């Protein structure tokens, strides 16, 4: 909402001229200042003049000599325009004047005659494109007055953000009222004195939809001349950002900005019959609107009908059939109170968002309709002539009496703290135009222009607003006893661990295309659909974190990264019913990673590790150590993953996801590959609380190291062999590690060799040579039970 200071001053006598201070006050009243525009005078030395005499130029036919009075002795000015005669009030750029664009006016000779300055056109003054003739001023402005005073320049325009609960503040009057409340002074209404002809109007209005239309006022004006608006009106509209059209239309806009009530005008001669009916449209009806678009109407549309059918849409746009034109002489001025939700739906359905619909959507004061109509009618008859007929239509279907809210000081003090007595509250509410009666409770009558104030707490906000948010203390409540949960803390450990391993945390958009999801084995039916997506590619929600991560990996590769490791923790969406709330889909949190190329520690000149399934498995074990979770990995072939190089991950027998490598085909579908290490795991079981460990004191006895090498079936998991050998000697193995795995033709078909190194140490004694021999034998025996054969030690 653009508010010119000069216009504002017409409705309130502000006690300060300090623009910065006014801006701060407006902001603290809840009208955020988005900008303060300073409108400068774009010329110097341009004054109002009167043409006393016009005579031909002795040496030219197309220009004339004018004697112009402009605040001193009459002077001669040569002028090439013909759109005026003696007596016209014009703008005179005196010798030495500077016009927009830096053009300096001198005293100069034109075809042998001295011209003492210039009579200006609108274009020369930068006011518009009109260069048909010079600017002839309306009325009788004072001769010699600086021209800029007629345009209220210089001026300041506040650009305010008006919150949706304050339709009343979408007007100069509303802002004046709020400033009045702040300063404790009264704002005033514009003049609405109306002279009528004594002839009654024959127009009648029937409201058949009292929900949609609470009030409808109509005035008829005869003998109007539709013309350009006077300069002052056009210039005020320009300041608030509206393009002038004609006096009649400009008046409706002017009053809308002034008072906050939108209006509409009909050409009365194009309205069929003399009865307007307001009701919902029927399917199949059509209406051509002012923008010459043929609208298909429906039962949600609230329409004004005349004898021929739909003639105007409520609150959004008038009809083309009854549009005011240059030849219009009889008009109907409409100011109606429309149902906000109805206008909101219509404006969106027909894509007709306007200054008017914006106001009606928020709620225009029904108490204001007749006042706005009178104001607009008065202005039209002032500017366009014509006489106003009597017996104006004012149909009221709703209750438009002000409401009464009961308010106790305790209501205020509970929310705002101590220090608000009835006197303070009464003063503040009174300044806002409310009447307050009684003590406890106070009976507060709320004016109809504040539809947002219906409950005690709404009045509490007004008290706070006018008291000033900046005057409240700053205190901190101490009643909380919080902290992170175990799961939340463990989740942070998880992030730190992956970051410590060199992975970057990614956050991807959770939308996915059907094709990407199908690359990972998800069918379209497993994807949750957004009913109103921004783009078709974003119409499905991710059921896996991997497509997003793979796209992000590809982004990095495209910028030349030789190794990229990304992980994400986030929600995925399924089409399974949630256990927590059966009305919702199951939406678990997941952890996933995707890694390609170089990973891990980099040592100069030494080959770095390239991401593969082993890297994924290594990361899994790192997480296991960091979070104290024992993972079981069982070879598995989920869709999209490499069937031989992927494991299902289990915690205590329960599957929690997969770790390994993507299949090269999947990788290629994401323009990656061939080898992408990847994993996707349920987050909840990873970060679930653990039982605390019971400490074991480190043994003080010496250790023994030895290696065992076995020939085993190629598909025997190394972990099974390792576990069997450890279990055979109980607590004596302190650490062990498979340090070699190889296949060789010498081993025989379907066989592999595993070399394991063990460190043994007893908690309570030094192991003797004999004991070590027996332990070793037991471990070998356990391996043999699994079909292994000792190759060496």
């Amino acid at each position: 909402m653009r508010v010119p200071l000069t216009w504002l001053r017409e409705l309130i006598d502000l006690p300060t001229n300090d623009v910065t201070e006014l801006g701060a006050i407006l902001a603290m009243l809840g009208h955020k200042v988005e900008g303060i525009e300073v409108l400068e005078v774009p010329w110097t030395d341009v004054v109002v003049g009167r043409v006393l005499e016009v005579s031909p130029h002795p040496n030219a036919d197309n220009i004339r000599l004018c004697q112009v009075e402009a605040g001193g002795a009459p002077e001669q000015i040569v002028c090439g325009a013909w759109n005026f005669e003696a007596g016209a009030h014009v703008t005179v750029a005196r010798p030495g004047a500077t016009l927009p664009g830096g053009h300096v006016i001198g005293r100069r000779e034109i075809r042998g005659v001295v011209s003492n300055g210039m009579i200006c056109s609108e274009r020369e003054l930068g006011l518009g494109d009109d260069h048909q003739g010079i600017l002839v001023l309306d009325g009788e402005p004072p001769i010699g007055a600086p021209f800029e005073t007629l345009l209220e320049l210089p001026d300041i325009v506040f650009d305010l953000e008006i919150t949706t609960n304050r339709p009343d503040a979408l007007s100069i009057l509303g802002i004046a009222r709020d400033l009045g409340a702040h300063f404790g002074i009264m704002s005033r209404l514009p003049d609405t004195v109306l002279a009528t002809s004594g002839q009654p109007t024959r127009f009648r209005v029937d409201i058949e939809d009292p929900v949609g239309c609470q009030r409808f006022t109509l005035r008829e004006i005869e003998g109007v001349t539709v013309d350009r608006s006077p300069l002052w009106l056009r210039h005020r509209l320009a300041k608030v950002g509206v393009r002038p059209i004609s006096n009649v239309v400009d008046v409706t806009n002017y009053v809308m900005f002034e008072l906050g009530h939108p209006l509409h005008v009909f050409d009365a001669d194009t309205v069929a019959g003399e009865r307007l009916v307001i009701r919902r449209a029927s399917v199949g009806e059509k209406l051509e609107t002012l923008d010459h678009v043929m609208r298909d109407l429906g039962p949600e549309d609230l329409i004004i009908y005349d004898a021929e059918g739909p003639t105007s849409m409520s609150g959004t746009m008038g009809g083309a059939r009854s549009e005011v034109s240059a030849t219009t002489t009889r008009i109907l001025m409409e100011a109606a109170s429309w149902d906000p939700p109805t206008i909101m739906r219509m404006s969106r359905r027909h894509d007709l968002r306007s200054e008017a619909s914006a106001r009606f959507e928020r709620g225009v004061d029904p108490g204001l309709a007749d006042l706005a109509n009178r104001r607009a009618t008065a202005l039209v008859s002032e500017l366009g002539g014509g006489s106003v007929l009597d017996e104006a239509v004012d149909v009221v279907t709703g209750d438009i009496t002000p409401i009464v809210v009961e308010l106790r000081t305790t209501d205020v003090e509970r929310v705002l703290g101590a220090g608000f007595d009835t006197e303070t509250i009464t003063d503040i509410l009174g300044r806002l135009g409310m009447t307050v009666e009684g003590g406890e409770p106070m009976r507060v009558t709320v004016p109809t222009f504040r539809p947002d104030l219906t409950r005690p707490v709404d009045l509490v906000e007004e008290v706070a607003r006018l008291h000033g948010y900046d005057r409240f203390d700053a205190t901190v409540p101490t009643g909380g006893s919080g902290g992170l949960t175990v799961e939340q803390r463990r989740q942070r450990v998880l992030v730190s661990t992956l970051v410590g391993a060199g992975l970057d945390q990614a956050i991807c958009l959770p939308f996915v295309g059907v094709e990407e999801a199908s690359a990972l084995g998800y069918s379209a039916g497993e994807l949750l659909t957004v009913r109103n997506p921004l783009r078709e590619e974003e119409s499905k929600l991710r059921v896996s974190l991997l497509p997003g991560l793979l796209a992000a990996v590809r982004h990095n590769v495209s910028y030349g990264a030789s190794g990229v490791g990304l992980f994400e923790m986030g929600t995925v969406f399924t089409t399974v019913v949630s256990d927590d709330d059966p009305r919702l889909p199951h939406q678990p949190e997941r952890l996933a990673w995707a890694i390609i190329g170089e990973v891990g520690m980099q040592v100069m000149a030494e080959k770095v590790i390239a991401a593969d399934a082993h890297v994924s498995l290594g990361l899994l074990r790192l997480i296991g150590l960091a979070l104290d979770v024992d993972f079981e990995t069982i070879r598995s072939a989920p869709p999209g993953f490499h069937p031989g190089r992927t494991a299902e991950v289990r915690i205590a027998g329960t599957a929690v996801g997969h770790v390994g490598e993507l299949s090269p085909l999947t990788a290629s579908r994401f323009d990656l590959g061939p080898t992408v290490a990847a994993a996707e795991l349920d987050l909840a079981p990873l970060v679930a609380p653990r039982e605390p460990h019971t400490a074991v004191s480190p043994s003080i006895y010496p250790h023994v190291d030895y290696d065992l090498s076995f020939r085993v079936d190629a598909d025997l998991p190394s972990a099974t062999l390792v576990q069997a050998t450890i279990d055979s000697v109980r607590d004596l193995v302190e650490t062990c590690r498979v340090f070699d795995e190889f296949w060789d033709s010498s081993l025989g078909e379907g066989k592999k060799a595993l070399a394991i190194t063990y460190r043994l140490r007893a908690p309570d004694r030094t192991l003797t040579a004999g004991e070590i021999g027996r332990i070793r034998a037991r471990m070998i025996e356990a391996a043999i039970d699994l079909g292994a054969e000792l190759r060496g030690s």
Partner: protein
Amino acid sequence: MDPVAILERVIAAAPQAVDAAGSLDELEDVEASLLGRSSEVADVRRGMSTLDEDLRPRVGAMLNEVTERLNGMVAARRAMLKRSAETDRLTSESIDVSLEAVRFPLGATHLIQQTIDEVVDIFVGLGYQVASGPEAELAWYNFDALNTPPTHPARLESDTMYLDWGDPGDEVLLRTQTSPVQARWMETHEPPVYVVVPGKCYRTDTVDATHLPVFHQIEGLAVDEGIVFSDLKGTLLHFAREFFGPATSVRLRPHFFPFTEPSAELDVSCFACDGDDPGCRVCTGAGFLEMLGCGMVDPNVFEAVGYDPGAVTGFAFGVGVERLAMVRHGIDSIKHFIDNDRRFLEQFR
């Protein structure tokens, strides 16, 4: 010759000889010349038996003392030469300490995650708990429970993404704010409530420099007996100072939200210029930065979740995480947060 004179001469000349030894080998030669078989000291020792009885004790004592002192001098010099040799050896092993021969991997926690953690920790320090809730949420929690009228424009498909899911009476959408978790938390917890809710939110916004269809918000809610407007102000002032620096000041401006009354927007003083630079790149001269929306919980919200609005009061606020991070780090486009470009992510390790 007089043995005493010999010994005196030897001991007088010894320091210079010992110090002249520039290496361990040279020192061995010097040691041999001072104390070896053919040294003058050895000669004196061998001549002891030929000395007069009355001279013998004195010369003997002197001999022992000289031997001991010479040994001491040689040992000290040897230790010094050894140290010096070790130093030379270590110096010869010098490396280029500017060379990054071994590079340990270190990734980056996403800046959004870091920002969330930091804000959460500030409120945990004030005694808040951390809650979460579903991103695919019932319209009831996202709007109705938060006092949003059925006709509110925020509910329109032009603003909110709806899902093809479930019963038409229980419309499911992608939550547009973290506030529905407020309602869920209050439904399942009795007051007092001190909780923050970080999480993803969704709006039908196309991606540009300042908009994403998915962004992060942190919701805060305090409900207790006797919570007043000043508590909201003080809590947010504390937050602003912890996050932007101890000199930060805040300004509350009246605003409008359906779920709070009174409502406010919080501006924080510009941490870059503190309002002193009309050309400031952070606040563009305004001196303040618009930071978040907040207010006192509307009684209708309490009623929707089964709290007695006559018994408790509370405040709530919601802050955009992307905005916090962009403002503090001078990030020019919100798109950086979803591009997941390592070159961006790893600036914030």
